[in-house]
């Protein structure tokens, strides 16, 4: 599974330039977003729910095309790719979905073996060894015969991680990897993200709103709100940022640029107290 050499020369694995996108024309989700992910880095994209970060991930995946601007992934613009080209690009990427998205009708082993069986014609023994390797890397080699329904949330996510690295991808995408994990499982995932990135020589992109956890693992952060990048920097820079929204987000304050109250009429009016 050697990667073609030219991809290794790219300085930036992902380059997003002036990308705008909306699921329908009336409501744009991304407005003129520019960011880039250098090779070998672990980059976080953070923001509140609904700020557009998951949509950005889908654009990088090629599931959607930007309505304007370009998204270059692994050296090619997603807009230029036909279906075969898109699939070829995705074979070099791995994605970890929020709850794992394991195939429930297969065992752990069969799940991890799936990309190998679909895309390679390696002999059975070799596939077996590779699957064991990947499962060992996430610490679940002993669980290979279990069904996904028998796994805890954290274990399922680790198996999904093993599956997504089965073909040794150059780019790893993580969609909310820390959601709903207990502190131990969280620590495990953090360690794995770092280790895999470095040992595979890959680049990782983490989309999350778990600020404190993520700041401890990433090299660089992009902060998004309302479809725009409003701040970027190293974790230390972000922690020290005096941009009001970032400040509120990082420190978990309930009041700031994002108000506590959902827009509503005057309280008096709702309680029917005000005399007209």
């Amino acid at each position, binding site marked *: 599974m050697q990667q073609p050499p030219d991809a290794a020369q790219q300085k930036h694995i992902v380059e997003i330039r002036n990308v705008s996108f909306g699921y329908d024309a009336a409501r744009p989700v991304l407005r003129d977003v520019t960011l880039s992910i250098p090779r070998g880095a672990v980059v976080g994209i953070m923001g509140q729910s609904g700020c557009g970060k998951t949509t950005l991930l889908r654009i990088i*995946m090629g*599931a959607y095309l930007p309505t304007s601007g370009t998204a270059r992934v692994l050296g090619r613009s997603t807009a230029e790719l036909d279906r075969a080209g*898109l*699939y*070829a690009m*995705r*074979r070099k*990427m791995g*994605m970890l*979905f*929020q*709850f794992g*998205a*394991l*195939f*429930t009708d297969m065992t752990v082993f069969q799940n991890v073996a*799936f*990309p190998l069986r*679909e*895309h390679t014609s390696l002999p059975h023994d070799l596939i077996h060894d590779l699957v064991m390797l990947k499962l060992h890397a996430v610490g679940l080699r002993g669980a290979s015969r279990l069904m996904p329904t028998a796994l805890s949330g954290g274990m399922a996510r680790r198996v*999904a991680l093993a*599956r*997504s690295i089965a073909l040794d991808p150059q780019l790893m995408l993580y969609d909310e990897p820390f959601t709903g994990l207990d502190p131990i499982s969280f620590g495990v995932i953090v360690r794995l993200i770092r280790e895999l990135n470095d040992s595979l020589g890959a680049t990782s992109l983490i989309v999350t709103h778990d600020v404190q956890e993520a700041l401890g693992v990433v090299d660089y952060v992009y902060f998004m709100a309302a479809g725009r990048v409003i701040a970027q920097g190293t974790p230390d820079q972000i922690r020290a940022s005096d941009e009001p929204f970032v400040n509120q987000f990082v420190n978990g304050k309930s009041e700031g640029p994002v108000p506590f109250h959902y827009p509503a009429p005057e309280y008096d009016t709702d309680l029917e107290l005000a005399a007209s």
Partner: protein
Amino acid sequence: MPIAALRARLERLGGTVTSHVWRLGFASRFLFYLVVHSGTALRRFRLTIAEVYFAGVLSLVIILVSGLFVGMVLALQGYETLQRFGASESLGVLVALSLVRELGPVVAGLLFASRAGSAITAEIGLMKATEQISAMEMMAVDPIARVVAPRFWGGVLSMPLLAALFSAMGIFGGYLIGVQLIGVDAGAFWSQMQAAVDWNKDILNGVIKSVVFGVAVTWIAVFEGYDATPTAEGVSRATTRTVVTSSLAILALDFILTALMFTGGNGK
């Protein structure tokens, strides 16, 4: 009724019809794509065989039991009426023709839609809701070729076999009641049946019907599953739509096919 309200209703009606037509077009393109990309389902026949198991084998019990009961009831009801005209020896003809021409394909189709069709829709819908379909797409595997196509061909292959088994069981049930219980002459039962049931006209037409129904039901089932809203409520609604739409489609197609096969071309 004020003009504005009437107009609003008409607009809604037009909108509903348009959206149904649009959806039918979408479903047709889906079917075309599915058939064109059936290479994986045929090359890796194991996948399709697994689906024949889930759709066909697991429906065997309900099909066989229902067939038996339908045949038995046909014999009871048929005898009751025939013996008034002194034609009780034609009981075999009645049971066989009713089953082979109509009840076999139609009732087996309806049962298949409820049992296997809804299961297929729920399965595909849930895979969509739990992001398994997206995960597959991300792993550069075409989910339609890998997940949908085997289920489609599994259903199409199972349906004619189930209909034939339904009819066979029904005739056996009719024999049990008619000959063993009621006492119609066994010889007359079988011989009149053999004289009246034609391989081309009746049995083959019944098989053609069941193939058409199989295609219709499975197409609807896989489409509704793939198109379901990825929430629990969405999957439940999609499953209901599968059963309702399949049942209506079977009955409508049955009418069209019967009109084509059994009435037109009535001798020179």
